[in-house]
């Protein structure tokens, strides 16, 4: 029995020796032609394959090579009949910056199926002549070609050749399943939108990548985005730079971890599909995007009222309204003027931002806070407000009184400037919902962007407007009394906390020395105000003058401390942010690309020291043990980008996701899966779910 087994093995080995050709060595490639089975059976089909072993980092191409390269060609000839149809396995995506290719690296097998004619029955063997040509590239490209001759015994039955079974299995596993489910595509402005209708698509479609099998339709290097629509999914990607004509049918490949679905998307020209140039089509197509953006902006504005930096200001104002009581007409008027103040300030910031962007700056929302000077101004503002609230600073003095005059009292002017103040103090807080609305706004023509910002302002002003417009509501406000003074004093403390936070932001932008400088400047400011206050009480004019001069000198000292602090930020801007915690790498486009190319899963966190939402998310979700564990287990590389200072790289990265502000969280699954954008408000559960999604 043992001997029989041995004999069988020997025979099998001998037979198998025929089912391949010699390895052909060409530049950076070893290739051979192999057969799936050990013999050719007349009247049946035979699968052969071009077996390729690429040098590390070198690759050959799919039927759509992408932005450069050439598809591999194979011709198999047998008894005067030749075939060149390759059953393309699902390719990998190779990202070389602005150039994207589809192809194969490492070991790959491109199968070709040939029919073995009945006429070879009776022959002892058949010989297939195979001719193959390819382009192999790393960063440079070398064309290659070779001829192979594969001789197989003719037999009535054939067994699989074990030596190549894993290669053929790889190719079989990567054979896309041809699906007939309904898919259509249309062109909107500069985007292609592919629509996947019905329920027959995978439920996790958003985790799939879409490779075009046709050229000149999708921009290969652009990042596409999935969106759930009422009857399925839509995938939006930038139109190819070389788009010429929309084909009636476009072959596309959906891929996810080597699995593939091959489909035909039909051109849907019913929906005002015609592209390309011209503002009008862009704008028309934006109509149905504008309304949601307006609503989201409005909601975002509402939420801003609850932000810790804004709330005290508004609460005091609301109490002021309650106090004012009587004159309804005046109240309504002030409410409207307050709203105007908020809206005008938002529009002013938006106009400035749009103007700077038109001038070419890669800025995004929150850009003000990237300027150390703005942070200084905010710190001083909050510090003064806190002093005033606490009653430490009696704001009768002329200097400090300017702001007071503007925002207190019941004049139209005060109502307007309360609105401005509310907007200014709110600007650090990009509330949830606002991110995408602002991202949308900034990607639109100006006349679209400004309404979105106006809507944001209206949302923020809405509670006050309602309060002033509906008299009945003021009845629910508590009766004025001595408690108001105490509450006012109490609210000084959240303001001081805001000061502490802004000091920290400034410290991030500059250094601890810069932060100490600003802190000293605040104390000096307090001292100068105290001196001014003293001067008012002094009877002798010379003494008053000396006190005032001293106050001015102290202020000058404070200014100097701040200027030298800001100068530190210039110095710091030169050196990349090194203060990244353990287990977290600093984000760079280059690093992200490298990791993606090596197939590693990556989590990207775009944050800024001045973004409260970001800090909260980091504290609550990202630094939690559960998330850390999930990352470790899955071998996810955590990249953190710091937008505290201006960084055009990061601005563009945000833009590629339609965003213009932080936070942004993106998870890139292993093996080049489609990136998943996480919500702007995180919990540990949300993050672990996203990281461990199949």
């Amino acid at each position, binding site marked *: 029995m043992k001997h029989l087994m041995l004999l069988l093995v020997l025979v099998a080995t001998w037979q198998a020796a025929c089912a391949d050709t010699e390895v052909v060595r060409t530049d950076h490639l070893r290739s051979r032609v192999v057969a799936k089975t050990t013999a050719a059976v007349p009247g049946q089909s035979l699968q052969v394959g071009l077996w390729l072993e690429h040098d590390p980092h070198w690759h050959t191409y799919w039927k759509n090579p992408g*932005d450069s390269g050439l598809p591999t060609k194979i011709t198999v000839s047998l008894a005067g009949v030749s075939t060149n149809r390759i059953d393309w396995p699902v390719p990998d995506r190779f990202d070389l910056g602005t150039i994207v290719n589809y192809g194969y690296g490492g070991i790959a097998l491109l199968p070709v199926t040939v029919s073995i004619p009945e006429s070879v029955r009776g022959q002892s063997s058949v010989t297939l002549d195979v001719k193959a040509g390819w382009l192999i590239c790393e960063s440079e490209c070398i*064309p290659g070609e070779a001829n192979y001759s594969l001789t197989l015994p003719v037999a009535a039955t054939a067994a699989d050749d074990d030596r190549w079974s894993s290669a053929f299995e790889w190719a079989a596993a990567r054979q896309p399943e041809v699906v007939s489910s309904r898919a259509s595509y249309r062109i909107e402005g500069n985007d292609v939108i592919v629509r996947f209708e019905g329920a027959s698509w995978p439920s996790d479609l958003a985790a799939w990548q879409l490779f075009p099998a046709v050229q000149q339709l999708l921009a290969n290097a652009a990042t596409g985005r999935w969106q759930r629509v009422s009857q399925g999914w839509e995938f939006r990607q930038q139109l190819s730079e070389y788009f010429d004509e929309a084909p009636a049918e476009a072959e596309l490949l959906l891929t996810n971890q080597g699995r593939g679905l091959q489909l035909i998307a039909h051109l849907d020209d019913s929906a005002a599909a015609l592209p390309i140039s011209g*503002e009008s089509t862009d704008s028309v197509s934006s109509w149905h995007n504008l309304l949601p953006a307006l609503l989201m902006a409005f909601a975002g504005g509402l939420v801003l009222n609850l932000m810790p930096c804004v709330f005290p200001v508004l609460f005091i104002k609301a109490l002021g309204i309650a106090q004012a009581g009587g004159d309804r007409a005046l109240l309504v008027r002030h409410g409207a003027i307050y709203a105007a103040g908020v809206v005008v300030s938002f529009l002013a910031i938006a106009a400035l931002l749009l103007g700077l962007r038109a001038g070419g700056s890669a800025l995004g929302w929150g850009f003000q806070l990237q300027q150390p000077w703005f942070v200084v101004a905010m710190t001083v503002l909050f510090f003064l407000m806190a002093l005033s609230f606490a009653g430490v600073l009696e704001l009768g003095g002329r200097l400090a009184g300017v702001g007071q005059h503007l925002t207190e009292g019941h004049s139209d002017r005060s109502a307007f400037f309360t609105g401005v103040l509310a907007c200014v103090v709110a600007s650090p807080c990009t509330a949830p919902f606002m991110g995408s609305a602002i991202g949308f706004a900034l990607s639109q023509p100006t006349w679209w962007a400004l309404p979105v910002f106006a809507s944001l302002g209206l949302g923020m002003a809405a509670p006050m407007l309602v309060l002033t417009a509906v008299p009945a509501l003021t009845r629910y406000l508590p009766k004025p009394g001595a408690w108001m003074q105490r509450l006012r004093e109490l609210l000084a403390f959240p303001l001081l906390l805001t000061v502490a936070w802004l000091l920290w932001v400034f410290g991030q932008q500059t250094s601890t020395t810069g932060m100490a400088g600003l802190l000293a400047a605040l104390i000096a400011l307090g001292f100068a105000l105290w001196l001014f206050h003293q001067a008012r009480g002094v009877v002798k004019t010379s003494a008053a003058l000396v006190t005032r001069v001293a106050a001015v000198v102290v202020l000058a000292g404070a200014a100097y401390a701040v200027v030298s602090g800001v100068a530190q930020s210039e110095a710091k801007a030169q050196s990349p942010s090194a203060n990244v915690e353990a287990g977290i790498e600093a984000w760079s486009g280059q690093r992200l690309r490298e990791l993606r190319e090596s197939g590693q899963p990556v989590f990207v966190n775009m944050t800024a020291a001045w973004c409260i939402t970001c800090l909260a998310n980091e504290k609550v979700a990202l630094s939690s043990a559960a998330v850390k564990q999930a990352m470790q287990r899955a071998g996810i590389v955590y990249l953190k980008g710091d937008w505290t200072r201006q960084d055009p790289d990061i601005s563009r990265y945000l833009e590629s996701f339609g965003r213009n502000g932080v936070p942004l969280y993106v998870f890139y699954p292993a093996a080049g899966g489609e990136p998943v954008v996480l919500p702007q408000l995180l919990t540990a559960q949300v993050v672990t779910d996203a990281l461990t999604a199949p």
Partner: protein
Amino acid sequence: MKKRSLHGFALLCAGLLASPFVAHASKVGEPAPAFTLTDSDGKTRSLEEFKGKTVVLEWTNADCPFVKKHYGSGNLQQQQRNAIAQNIVWLSVNSTAKGREGNVSGADANKIRKEQKAAQIAYLIDEDGKVGHAYGAKTTPHLFVIDGLGVLRYNGAIDNVPSTKVEDLARATQYVPAVLASLKKGEAIKPSSTQPYGCAVKYPLVNAEKEEDCGC
């Protein structure tokens, strides 16, 4: 502030910065990006200089097998001579980064021109890839045609048979001569945009991105 101007500027900046995330080519029908580059003779050349004339831009890299096909066969030289005979400006551009295969000094470029018996008006060196990115040049060869008004009229491949083999030229349609003929006759250009084929342009690998680069 129209969307286009806003975007145009941002895109130009993005292009100049060699951003890996924004891949925008200049578009047919829109003004071609202005540029100023040094040619292989050390002379400063700009698009402005050729105002009023049709300009062909040809991205090149003599080490690329696709470029070798079209110069080895004499196809590109022939197209250059025919164009120049019609008072059309033909400029070759090399955006290969320093240290990457195909990067040339002025002297190298002149040597290559001599060997190829090429006839371009000038061979422009764009080592930092700024102009390449501004145009969205992806491959060598990659061809652009700009009309006398400075509007981009063609962006794409040299011909319709992607291959590295000289023998394929016999069955290929050369796009640029057809574009130039249509321009001359004032006809619509068809096709005005094709998928370029060739080697990827070897842009700088590390993005030494500085804000000042694009005057942001």
